[in-house]
């Protein structure tokens, strides 16, 4: 991880000095998988990370001109200090203040994820950006207009040329640049990570360690690995809001067994990403733990793990809940949340 950080600092400097240099030499980014992470899902060989690819992706991510009203960028709903969520918004609102019915999940460690969106509507880090850009509720952007805008913008022309020499400005390279930016958005330096890698700054308190054991016993079947998801879709017993009746994975597959199943989300930076669940129904981690303890409903396709011989939910004492929450807060990665390299300005 140190390598990435060093590169980061270097990028920042190189970025400023080379702005007008058309002879600029694009440099590869030496991306290292943190040792406590599962392997990358994203095949970077088809889209090798480079400084300029990242820079182009970042410019696109923060460009409101991708939306039909010129104001809504990806970064509008995915805010860095909130682990790239739309903090405080149960439902994200997009162009014309149209409101969706789902809570914006964090954009972090995406290159390790095989399923995107709450229902897995996309399974590729590059292809996923087609959804928000075309969505009437999110950006309502027209890809044809966006590509034309970029072809007529001096800065974009330069960046595309530097990032993808001899390639056209087209949807393929727009998606690749966003893929590069999101890949570099790696959160791997929380106190928990340092603990797992035996690094300095990785001391966990007795309560936090107890919380970690409890978590492994009660939660880790679904929230698996150090990224805290097994990339599957499950129903964790949320009662159904009849007004929205979000059918989850069923929307994508129309297979009855997928009704009310949602992607098991990563829990990294969970302290910063309230409200919780696909519809943002819980505002605190306490409310989430209370749900698992006593709020689980026996809805269609409830995960069998949450139904032991008719007893719904997970047995948790007040003390255990507090310890699990203490543990969850060790997943906060300040370095990621404040890294100037990822920020809009």
């Amino acid at each position: 991880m140190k390598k990435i950080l060093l590169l980061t600092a270097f990028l920042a400097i190189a970025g400023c000095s080379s702005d007008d240099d058309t002879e600029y030499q694009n440099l590869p980014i030496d991306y290292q998988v943190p040792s406590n992470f599962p392997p990358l899902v994203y095949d970077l060989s088809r889209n090798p990370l480079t400084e300029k690819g990242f820079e182009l992706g970042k410019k696109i991510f923060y460009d409101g001109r991708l939306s039909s009203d010129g104001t809504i960028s990806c970064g509008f709903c995915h805010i860095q200090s909130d682990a790239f969520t739309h903090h405080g918004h149960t439902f994200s609102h997009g162009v014309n203040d149209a409101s969706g019915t789902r809570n914006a999940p964090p954009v972090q460690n995406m290159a390790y994820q095989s399923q995107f969106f709450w229902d897995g509507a996309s399974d590729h880090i590059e292809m996923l950006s087609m959804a928000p850009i075309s969505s009437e509720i999110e950006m309502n952007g027209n890809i044809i207009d966006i590509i034309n805008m970029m072809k007529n913008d001096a800065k974009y022309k330069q960046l595309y040329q530097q990032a993808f020499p001899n390639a056209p400005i087209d949807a393929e390279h727009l998606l690749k640049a966003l893929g590069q930016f999101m890949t570099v958005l790696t959160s791997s330096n929380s106190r928990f990570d340092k603990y797992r890698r035996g690094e300095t700054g990785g001391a966990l308190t007795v309560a936090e360690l107890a919380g970690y054991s409890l978590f492994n016993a009660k939660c880790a079947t679904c929230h698996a690995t150090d990224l805290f998801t097994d990339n599957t879709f499950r129903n964790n017993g949320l009662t159904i809001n009849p007004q929205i009746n979000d059918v989850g994975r069923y929307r994508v597959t129309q297979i009855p067994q997928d009704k009310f199943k949602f992607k098991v989300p990563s829990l990294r930076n969970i302290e910063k990403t309230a409200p919780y669940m696909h519809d943002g129904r819980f505002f605190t981690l306490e409310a989430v733990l209370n749900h698992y303890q006593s709020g689980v409903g026996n809805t269609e396709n409830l995960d069998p793990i949450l139904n032991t011989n008719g007893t719904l939910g997970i047995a948790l004492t007040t003390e255990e809940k507090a310890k699990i929450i203490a543990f969850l807060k060790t997943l906060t990665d300040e370095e990621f949340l404040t890294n100037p390299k990822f920020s809009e300005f």
Partner: protein
Amino acid sequence: MKKIFLAVLAISTIALTSCSNDSKDDTTATGNGSLKLEFDNVYGAADLALNTEYTNSNGEKVKPNNVIYIISNVVLTKADGSTYTVPKSSSYFFVNETDEASTLITLPNIPAGDYTKVKFGIGVDQAQYDAGADGQGDLWTTAALPSLGMTWSWASGYKFVKFEGTVTSTTHTDAPYKVHTGKTGSIYNYAEATLDFPNNALVRTNITPQVHIMADVKKIIDGTTVINFEEGLDVMGGTKVQQIMANNVPTMFEAHHVHND
């Protein structure tokens, strides 16, 4: 379209005659030429005319008003069994009934030779999905053209087949129906068809064969799997889409004849 069909028949008779004169062995053929695939949509035994009523085997009466499908990954096979694969990056085509130009696909840079069959996909294949944006060029931009509307936002991808119109059945009168197929979750629903040419396609530097393909769009909804719009006007996922792509779509194409001129 009927007139054209008749004319085509007439020409094909000539073509058939001329092709027997032409079929020297192709070992002598060198250089590159082109080949054209013409997709002629029909509805059962009739030429397809949009907004015209057709009756299906289940008694439902449909009036199609929009028929678009993606043809992809074209592979041509020569008489000696060798194959030519059209480069993937230039092998996605949108065939749109309302845009006549789109129904005639020209494949350039084909090695000269006598070709006996063509294989193609309907939709976007798993290899392309695995590759993400890589090699897609302007596929999204094209699919997003308002005249096509072939991007599928709920699956971050493409509609493979779009077949829309209105239906009259027991409880519906001219109600709009929509059949959209594409990748649904982890099921790719990519279909393939292999068509034997009734006579060889003789690609030469100076001959561009045109393969006339009949595409029976009735089969999309009324084939091995029969879609009853009575059960739902929108078919956009689940087992119905899987069955359409697995059972019906691969059988809807037929290479009717080849012009070698």
